């Protein structure tokens, strides 16, 4: 029953979602809302799994004095310290909000800013004229980059229109084709799960 019971729960939940979405009576019963609430409640308990996992791993690093173990002390102090603070004064409390706005948010912004440099290094490696595809990629990138900046139209009148055409026609067409394929692929995966053919989420190598 270790694998059969989760599979039964999965199939029944999937059928409930189909019934709630497509049938008027299913919508009126509000089963989707009920399922969503159950998911929220159960995933809230699952937070404990994440906390236990982090504490176990980082406590092990501290005990074994693994390289950089003092970072683990800082992490555990922040985890429990900030957790206690938000329990005491909620996330909108003065100190909790200050920490979030002045420590966490700038940290996120810093990491996001790094992406600009990573894009440059990735582009430098990718835009080398070694194959036909790389050449086409390079030409398209040059046309679109210059077209999106004022310099393109300043050099050649209408350059921006060419860049817009590349973005709106072949690029959008390609993206939509990928989205259609991915949507059908997701449907087929869901259908395999409903039929019980796909069992990867139950453990092991997955297929029946």
């Amino acid at each position, binding site marked *: 029953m270790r694998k059969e019971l989760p599979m039964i729960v999965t199939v029944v939940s999937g059928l409930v979602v189909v019934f709630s979405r497509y049938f008027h009576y299913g919508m009126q019963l509000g089963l989707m809302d009920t399922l969503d609430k159950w998911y929220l409640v159960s995933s809230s308990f699952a937070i404990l799994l994440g906390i236990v*996992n982090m504490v176990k791993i980082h406590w092990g690093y501290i005990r074994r004095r693994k*390289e950089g173990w003092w970072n683990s002390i800082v992490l555990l102090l922040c985890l429990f310290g900030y957790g206690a603070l938000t329990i005491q004064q909620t996330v909108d409390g003065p100190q909790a909000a200050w920490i979030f706005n002045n420590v966490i948010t700038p940290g996120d912004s810093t990491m*996001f800013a790094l992406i600009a440099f990573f894009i440059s290094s990735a582009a430098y490696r990718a835009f080398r004229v070694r194959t036909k595809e790389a050449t086409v990629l390079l030409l398209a990138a040059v046309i679109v980059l210059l077209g999106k900046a004022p310099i393109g139209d300043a050099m050649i009148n209408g350059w921006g229109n060419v860049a817009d055409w590349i973005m709106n026609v072949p690029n959008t067409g390609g993206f939509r084709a990928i989205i259609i394929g991915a949507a059908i*692929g997701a449907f087929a995966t869901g259908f395999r799960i409903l039929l019980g053919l796909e069992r990867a989420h*139950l453990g092991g190598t997955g*297929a029946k």
Partner: protein
Amino acid sequence: MLLAAEAAKPYLGVFAQGMFAQFVLMLVFAFIVWFMVTRAKAGMKIPEIRKINGLEALDEAIGRATEMGRPVHFTPGLGTVGNAMTFAAFGLLGYVAKLCAKYDTRLIQTNADYVVLAINEEIIRQAYLEAGRPDAFNADDVQFMSDQQFAYASNVMNMFQKEKPAANIMMGAFWAESLIFAETASFIGAIQIAGTASTSQLPFFITACDYTLIGEEIYAASAYLSKEPVLYGSLVGQDWAKIFVFAVILVGTVIANFQAKGNWLTTILKK
């Protein structure tokens, strides 16, 4: 003077409003997939599936990590368990974990969702058991890092610098952190296999990774790797469903060119 609005007519249909056409399309797709699965179950011939280079390269990537004595890293991205791409990652993780168990290669698996963490830990544990190496499974290598996007990204960057995995496998739902992972792994010389259906991140993976699975290829992963005829049949069914969609698009394009407003196809599809 009272202006009484006319009472709204109650809706008495069986199907939810605007859902009939979707339901019929869903049945059509389900029939196509079911038909091919049934053909495969009956042992009838089904069309071959083309080679997917990224999946064929998995053995090479893990073998490379084994030879270099460095670990393999696997991440299912930032998606929750309700995301179809995360489900696709589960199938691949089982295969990767079984190979790592067989070759005695360390597998570091990082997570940004605690529910996904629990599922992945069980998948890896079961894979090691199936490979006959339950003793080699290390629960400390299945790590929850953070559910915040950039906290997770910075943790993974730090892990890359410390552990220097020789193979980086990224399969699932990714957002802005995808390029951070890919570039950092590139700096440490890891071979990279990535797959996502997030169209905004595909260009980053294609430029930075050695092999990229695009869109539907990630949903084919578990079926492709298991080599089971029944699952192969579902992949063929998926392709036939795509052909059906393209036929509808073609017909719709022709009709729209002659009858832009109120054509019968859009009327049917809106029901």
